[in-house]
């Protein structure tokens, strides 16, 4: 996969840059290689996490996992959001709203 390279400039904590340089020396690469690899892996992980959260949510909507299991997987705040969304999918809830 090749794409046009873009020059970027940013500030980072000194110790983080020192660690990147140390790893670059060990691997016989330069700082840019280390930073690009780190960024690429981080972005992949972040995208994967969102997809995973959606799968976990789907399992909860379909009653394949309990609310407690959901909470253990995604944390209390996200679990509370997903509980509200699951209620939106309840046919009785939609009927109640429609009748008012």
């Amino acid at each position, binding site marked *: 996969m090749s794409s046009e390279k873009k020059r970027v400039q940013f500030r980072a904590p000194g110790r983080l840059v020192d660690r990147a340089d140390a790893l670059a020396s060990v691997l016989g690469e330069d700082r840019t290689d280390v930073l690009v690899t780190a960024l690429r892996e981080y972005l992949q992980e972040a995208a994967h996490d969102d997809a995973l959260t959606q799968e976990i949510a789907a399992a909860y909507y379909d009653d394949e996992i309990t609310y407690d299991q959901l909470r253990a997987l995604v944390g209390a705040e996200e679990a509370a959001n997903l509980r*509200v969304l699951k209620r939106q999918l309840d046919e009785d809830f939609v009927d109640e709203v429609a009748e008012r």
Partner: protein
Amino acid sequence: MPRVVADTSALVSLGIVAEVEPNPLSLCLASYDVSVPDEVLTELQEVASYDDEHGRAATAVRDRTDELTVRSVDLDAEFPLDDWENAAVTLANETDAALLLCDEFNRLGLVHASLADTRLVTTPTLLSVFVRTDRLTPDEARTLLDDISAARSWDANSYVQRARSLLDAP
């Protein structure tokens, strides 16, 4: 008419399909007394300045401001919510609104927990309600949800996917 409070996220969703006939914004204004707090209107103005689909959606709603009931509320600074969400929740509680329309999927737990007797309803649910009450056909509702989902990047959201199947139900 039942009183409904709308927050900015829901108004933008409705605005995306405001040019379609029939559309859920017009149905909403015809079926409910739709109230918004000042903060939501301010936020809507801000979004309306964007040169994108959300900006055009917010503009479409803003052009119908005279059909909304705009009210001011005293914000409860204790609420862990942004000002416009805080204001929408406060207005819903103060006026004992039947529904609060909100599409902030990542904040719904907090919004729900802050409401007294008002039911929280998302735009996909509102479309289901219009199907139940024969104001939209299932086909019309599905097309509207597809258009809103595309603009709001909801396609990968499993809640929206299931809400779409709910529209298929008899």
